[in-house]
Every structure is written in structure tokens, then in C-alpha cells.
């Protein structure tokens, strides 16, 4: 689901410094910071983020918090490319972030396989 015209504000949590790769497609869990009853609703998305928000058109704003919930200074730009399932396949109690990465990798593999057979 692409962003609407007016930029919106999202927030993500990172487990370790360096977990937010810039200018490549990455899977992320983001939550809605726009006011209202649904503030803090979470989504799983495939997105591109960058510190240089002005360089990529149609960027929303992304804020970042660490694993202990501390907000990092500044903000990033984010462009949401694709919605990923909220019911993310994985083993209960195992690492969520790994499951998110694994799902995206599996999808890619599937798509490449499909291309081969076409």
C-alpha cells in the first residue's frame, strides 16, 4: 500500500545499532504515529528508508526507537513499497526480526523460481 499524498509519520523499533539499512528494500515493522484512535497500530511492510529524505520523492517520516524504547535523534524518510502479512509465519517466542527477514527472502526465492518456469 503506497503512502497517501500528505506525508505521514511512522515509527519503528530496532534491536541493534545498524539494523536500519538505508537505500535498499528492507522489511520493517512500523507503527502509525498519526493522532486518533488508531494511533500506534502496527503494520509489517517492505520499505526503503533514507536519512536524505529530500532525495526520494513521496517520502513519509520515520522515527526510530531502540530495543529499550529510547528515541534516536532526528528522523528518516520512508517509502512504503509493499504490505507484508501481520500473521507472519514463524515459531512463537522465536526472533521476530529474523522471521520477518526470512519471509521476505522466501518470497523472493519463490518469485525467481516462478520466473524460471515461465
Amino acid at each position, binding site marked *: 500500500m503506497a503512502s497517501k499524498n500528505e506525508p505521514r509519520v511512522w515509527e519503528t*523499533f530496532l*534491536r541493534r545499532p545498524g539494523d536500519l539499512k538505508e537505500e535498499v528494500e528492507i522489511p520493517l*515493522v512500523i*507503527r502509525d504515529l498519526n493522532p*486518533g*484512535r*488508531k*494511533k*500506534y*497500530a*502496527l*503494520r509489517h511492510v517492505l520499505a526503503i528508508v533514507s536519512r536524505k529524505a529530500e532525495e526520494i520523492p513521496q517520502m513519509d517520516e520515520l522515527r526510530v*526507537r*531502540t*530495543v*529499550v*524504547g*529510547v*528515541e534516536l535523534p532526528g528522523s528518516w524518510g520512508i517509502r512504503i513499497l509493499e504490505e507484508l502479512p*501481520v*500473521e*507472519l*509465519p*514463524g*515459531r*512463537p*517466542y*522465536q*526472533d*521476530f*526480526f529474523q*522471521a520477518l527477514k526470512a519471509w521476505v527472502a522466501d518470497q523472493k526465492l519463490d518469485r525467481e523460481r516462478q520466473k524460471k518456469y515461465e
Partner: protein
Amino acid sequence: MFRDNRDFMAALRSSGDLLEIEKEVHWDLELGAVSRLACEKDGPAVWFKRVADYPEDETVFANPMATWRRVAVAFGMKPHAPVKEIYAEYERREGRLIPPVTVEKAPCKEIVQRGGDIDLFAFPAPMLHDGDGGRYLGTWDLAVSRDPETNWVNWGMYRFMVYDSLHLTGFPRPTSHLGKVFQDHYVPKKKAMPVALVIGADPLSHFAAAATYHIGGEEGALAGGLMGAPLELVRCEASDLLVPAQCEIVIEGEVLPDCVALEGPYGEYPGYRTGEMGNGILFRTTAVTHRKSPILTVDATGYRDDSSTITALTGAIAIKRRLERHGVPVLDVNVPRDGAVHTAVIAVKYGGRQVAREILETLTSRRALLSKILLVEPDVDIFDLGQVLHAFSTKCHPVHGIHAVQYEGRANTLTPCYSQGERAAQKGATVLYDCTWPGEWSREWEVPVKATFATIFPASIRQKVLSQWRAYGFKE
């Protein structure tokens, strides 16, 4: 005893332990901040009558039992009952089990929603601390689940946050009874586990759900025993689980066996937000039922929250029972409120290396939640922390009096002093401070004589002094 949470709130109002706030308060941090400060000041429970973004008939009740006064009221005791008496009262009632009964009609079914009607954002779940992973709908809750092999029904109080309109993510620890049954009997068969999340039942049902209680034990019967009458349960809409009929809100759903979800981080009962994030379980809502004008109950988790009384109290009695079973010469146990359920004071007939080892072993073999244990002799009133500190300071040998165990795979991942690495491996340790005299010291020749009024004067002098106390001019 209180049939429902509303009766309990009325009792708190008349004992002066409830503040009703008519002014609008925002669910996004303001409500959490008010409730947090109320805990830290030992203030009353709070009923928020107007919550921003939500209709007037959706209100929030925070910190039901975060003071000993409120625990006493919940137990039908005098509000100023001493902690020691509340401990003793729980100990008396805990052994008596009264199984629940089933009813057909229930207030918690006044509104029933299924399918597309379900919207978890319809409840004013607060963002309790700035930087938490989400809005917690489940804090002062009661999660009903069942072991499919034995039909054992478990109730537990576990945190659940709102993910989207339909999903919650939760953190019943993997070692909790729900976590264990889920992993043993549902995950391997890839079967979804029906769970009913109950909010705003009568106070002792929640107390029972939070109580340290043995595996296979039914908290529903414990709650009945604590109340002295059977609880009334009603069947769920989407499963055959039973929930307290008089509760405010029921979120019915199933925990998915093949999904993982982000959960936390969350400002937790030790008084910190440790980096526990991710690794949650995903709950898909199947039905929502509630009373008209539902009251959402909340625990403003952190220093001096509801766990500081009830988890501490039930933990202490459970520790006492286990040590008795293991032949430890235990007399009494106190888990003091400011120790965040990390410290236990244990009175024993005698201490020493062997008793210390036995205690450490017994209390860290499955779930190792305690971090510090102080072992004292019966001359110390374990409910008087001044006396406990005095014994610790004077009697614990800085080398020989300290015993520790380390373990892996079962540590309390919320204990703030552990590193992120230790947390990931569930590595931890528990230390015992032996504040008792070594058994081999001669009472006549070696054990120091305690120089207090009660111990260093002959009875005749003590009697004389006590009988003339006011005559000397003292007021108290």
C-alpha cells in the same frame, strides 16, 4: 465478598481508596503518567471517567490492588490490616478450593461482537509509558486457556498489546502455564490455542490469576476458595472456554501456533524497561463481548504496581510451601514490596551452608524469578525491614555468608542487572545472604549477644521498665 469489580470499586470509594477523575484525560501517556505517580505516592486507585477520543461511557480503572489497603479491602478485611495479617489470611484461605459453577446469562454478554464488527481500538487501551512497544489492553487481565490432553483450565495474568484492529500480541513467558501448554500441546500439532482474555472481573479472580500457583492447579477454584463462594462462569461465544460472568470485557481469540509477533518493549514490574522485545505470541480475535459502559482495568506497571503486593504475597507463601516440602527449616517468608519481587526474606530455625544450598536449589530449579535472598533467624521480624537490614549488616559474613548459583535457560529475563546477552540466553544468578550465626559457634562462648532491650536485660528489669514507662515521662 465482591461479586464484581463495580462492587469492589464502591467499597474502595467508601474506604477512601478510590479517586474519581471527571476531567478528560488522554489515553496517550497522560493516563499512564497519572496512574504511575499514584503508585509511587501510595495514592488511591483511580477511575478515569473521561478518556480523550472515546465516548463517555468507556472509562478506565487503574491500579486495583497496588496498596496493602486495597488488598485488605478485596479480602474483606479492615483497610488498615497489617501486612503480616494479610499474609496470614491468604495462607488460611489458599488451601480451600471451591470449584466454579456455570450460568447461562451474564452481564459480560450485554454487547456481543463477531466478525467484521470487531475493533480492538474501540477500547481506550492506554499508551502507558513513553516508548513502550504498544498500547496495552491486557495488564490487569485474566487469560483463560485449557490443556487439551487433561482439560486442565489455567488462569494467568499476562500482558497483551494491541497490534491492529484484530490482533493482540502477548508475553505470557515461555515458562508460564499458558506458555508451557501452548508449546507442549498446540505448537507441535500446529493447532491454534483458544484463549479468552478477561478484563475487569471481581478482584479475587484477578488475584488468583496473578498468584503463584502450582502446575495443574485451577485458579478458578482458588478464586472461589478465596471468596468463600463458587464463581459464576459463562461460556464463550467462539469457543467452549468459560469466563467470569460478571466481568467487564472478554476478548475471545486464538493464539496462532505458526506465527511470531513483535511484543514490547514494556516498562515492567521490576521498575525498568529492559530490552525485551520481539519474540511474542500472536492472538487473533474471534469475538468480543462486554458490559454496557465497560470499565477497562489497568495496572500502571512499574515500581509499586499491583505486583508489588499480590505477586509478592502469593510468591512468599509459595516459597514457604516449597521449602517446607524440601525439608528446609523455614518459619516464614516475606517478599517485601520495594524489592520488586526480586528479593525474599526467609526466616529459618537455623542457616548455614547446607540450608543455603538447599534453598537456592529449590527456588531456582524451574522458573528462577528471585535475585536476592536474605536468610534470617527468628529473632528478626521479617516484616520490619529495619530489623532485616540490621541483621544483614551485622550478621552476614562478607565472604562465608554469601552463596550464589548461576543458571541458564530459566532466568528472569526482566531482571534489570542482566546484560542483553544474558537475557537472550536466559542466563542468570541468585545470591543468598546468610544472616544467621554459624551453627558450630558456641552459644555460651562465641555467639555475640544481641544488645537490644528484649535480649540483653533480665526479665525482671524489662517488666519494671515497661510497667513504669509512662511514669518516667514517655508518651508512647
